[in-house]
């Protein structure tokens, strides 16, 4: 009996599907989700003869997205079609992690994802990822090449969980001409908050009618800046050793040092020596770029944009991030974002392919390109050797960030707080700072209420991952 045309079509479709599965090597059956070896690190043999395609979710836009695309294109070209990475932009860091949460529920995670520093604890607790140290051990990857201060953020009990990717440090930005016209020496930048306060008074300029045309100080009400100040003061942001001994149970941004920061900031605004541009970093950046602010706190990652925007108007200078007091001996936290490899729901070939890309991206040459293309600090200690002299001379300000990084003594405080609800904690600290700055509440009360407000979220998070 002859086959019916319908059955023949069905068989052809089946054959085609099988062939596609074989070619793409995406043999991620449902059976390897949740099995014990889903979180193992496979060796190079796992790639087999086929071609493995993996998705890479990232949160980079603008010039940084172009740098990601170039990195991915270089990697794909170097691997001659055996491994192919597809970079997919998923919105900002918050949006990326929100989509990741949805993808875990739908059992459809990408093999590789870029997550911000404050998502670290969540990623560990998600139980979806292959700890990076397993790949490092498998391949004998030279971990000494990775900046130790950066690696410490993403390490728990000395084990690396994710590969640092883009790293920025905070800086003090100065408007050189504002200093010279006020008769101040721009080569002697302020080192403490008190010094910034004193200089801010001298740098504030008013016109004949009494209107302020330039403020001494201005920065976004951005929780990250407070985290950095506490770290430079050697203070831990959350309990249980910054959440590194065991799960943190509360945040500590109501401690005296943090209240001191809030009070200092509120006083500057109240006295008219600082402008309050709100929480949006864009608005604070616009104020500095417009020359209406003489001193400013921001990340290294905006330096390139500042230098370009100020061209012909004023000179951008950078100085090490200030400390709370002369007695402060710590350094800032080296955060940014890192790369995570998902194990659950992914085949050995996919996991291996993701690792191949991670290994490549962490290399000295790609990191050197990444640094010059974006302004992020290279995570590979050998990358700076690869950067050509001409570029370093053109942007001497970048030196500040790298020097600051190397001068840093690694400590529990500068490793940063590991907290499952860290993004909410950061937002709460901004609530506290803002309430103090706009004068709605006294600084100590504002910070106290903000800190205790996070406890319920921490409790419910800790309960659900225990």
């Amino acid at each position, binding site marked *: 009996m002859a086959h019916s045309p319908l059955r023949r079509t069905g068989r052809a479709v089946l054959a085609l599907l099988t062939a596609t599965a074989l070619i793409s090597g995406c043999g991620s059956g449902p059976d390897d989700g949740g099995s014990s070896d889903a979180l193992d690190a496979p060796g190079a043999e796992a790639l087999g003869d086929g071609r493995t395609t993996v998705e890479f979710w990232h949160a980079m836009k603008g010039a940084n997205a172009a740098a990601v695309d170039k990195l991915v294109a270089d990697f794909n070209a170097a691997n001659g079609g055996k491994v192919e990475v597809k970079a997919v932009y998923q919105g900002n860091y*918050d949006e990326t*992690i*929100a989509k990741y*949460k*949805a993808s*875990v*529920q739908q059992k459809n995670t990408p093999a590789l994802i870029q997550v911000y520093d*404050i*998502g670290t604890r*969540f990623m560990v*607790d*998600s139980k979806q990822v292959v700890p990076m140290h397993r790949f490092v051990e498998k391949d004998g990857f030279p971990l000494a090449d990775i900046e130790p201060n950066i690696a410490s953020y993403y390490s728990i009990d000395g084990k690396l969980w994710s590969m640092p990717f883009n790293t920025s440090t905070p800086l003090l930005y100065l408007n050189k001409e504002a200093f010279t016209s006020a008769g101040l020496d721009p080569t002697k930048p302020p080192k403490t908050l008190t010094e910034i306060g004193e200089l801010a008074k001298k740098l504030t300029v008013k016109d004949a*009618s*009494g*209107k*302020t045309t330039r403020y001494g100080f201005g920065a976004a009400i951005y929780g990250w800046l407070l985290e950095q100040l506490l770290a430079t003061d050697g203070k831990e942001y959350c309990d249980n050793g910054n959440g590194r001994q065991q799960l943190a149970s509360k945040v500590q941004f109501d401690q005296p040092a943090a209240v001191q920061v809030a009070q200092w900031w509120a006083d500057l605004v109240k006295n008219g020596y600082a*402008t*309050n*541009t*709100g*929480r*949006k970093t864009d*608005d604070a950046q*616009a*104020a500095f770029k*417009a020359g*209406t*602010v003489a001193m400013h706190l921001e990340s290294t990652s905006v330096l390139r944009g500042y230098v370009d925007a100020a061209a012909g108007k004023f000179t951008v200078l950078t100085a090490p991030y200030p400390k709370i007091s002369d007695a402060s001996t710590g350094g800032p936290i080296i955060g940014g974002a890192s790369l995570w490899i998902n194990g659950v729901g992914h085949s050995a070939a996919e996991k291996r392919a993701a690792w191949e890309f991670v290994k490549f991206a962490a290399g000295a040459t790609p990191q050197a390109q990444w640094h010059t293309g974006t302004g992020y600090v290279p995570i590979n200690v050998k990358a700076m050797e690869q950067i050509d002299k001409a570029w370093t001379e053109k942007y001497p300000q970048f030196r500040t960030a790298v020097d600051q990084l190397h001068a840093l003594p690694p400590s529990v405080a500068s490793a940063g707080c590991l907290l*499952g*609800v*860290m*993004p*909410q904690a*950061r*937002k709460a600290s901004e*609530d506290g700072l*803002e*309430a103090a700055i*706009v004068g*709605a509440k006294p600084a100590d009360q504002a910070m106290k209420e903000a800190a205790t407000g996070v406890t319920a*979220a921490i409790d*419910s*998070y800790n309960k*659900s*991952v225990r």
Partner: protein
Amino acid sequence: MSPPLVVERSPSGATTTSGPRRERALSWLLLLPSVAVFALFIFWPLGRTLYLSTHGNDIFGAPGAYVGLDHYADMFSASFAGILATTALFTLISVLPAVLGALLVVLLLESRIRGVRVLRTAFALPFAFSVATASVVFAVIYNPAIGIANGLLGAVGVDRVDWLTDPSIALPAVGAATVWMNLGYNVLVLSAGVAAIPQEVVEAARLDGATGWRLATGITIPLLSPQLFFLVVVSTIHALQSFGQIHILTKGGPDDATSTLVYSIYERAFAYGSSDFGAASAQAVVLLLIMLACTAVQFGILERRVHYR
């Protein structure tokens, strides 16, 4: 329960049920698409929201253990009362000026001056802007460093205003942006209403000597009352649901001054790495109840004064 059976007796004496039954089946069949759409996009999400509002969440946001009415009980707090007060104030300052302002514009445009068509188009233009676009424009206007608003004030010698960073000014500033956004639509609706007023009524009034204010309060406004009522109801619902302008301009700040109920729902569910869908759903249910109550009250009180022709 037995279905009502319609039995008809045909002239020949034989019973038949096929006619009406077929008709009823047909009516259900015709209703099916809209019922399906409602079920899929309204009733199922509503049921799901109620379900989520009584459950906890794991760290990925998947519903967890049953928590009863805990999420609702959590709302009896000072901070949630503040959110409700902000929501009410925002609704008030964005609905009333937009409706009354549009009425004023439409009445003024009644006068027979040259270029009134151009003006009418100009006033209706905000309707063509999406909330996101208009909000971005207002973000530039209010910008603390390079904003046009402070630039203009500076030019006439007035000190700068912290439009979006002063807690007492931020809500009116966002409200003003919302009024501008809604004005166009309101002008459009009221213009159509004015155009539909029978000319003979107006002429009769004019013959009796009514002009200007008298004509407006005696004839035009009463005859516009169905449109005004419609605008108040719809704008209130819109104001309660406002999200885009708050998200783009203030993100609920400063010091929670613009944190409305919808924004709080968003923050609970999605912002800052949060995935507390349980608490967010409970707040969404409260929002639904508030909107139902507002609409019911408006129908109960305002509609009595509406003059339908």
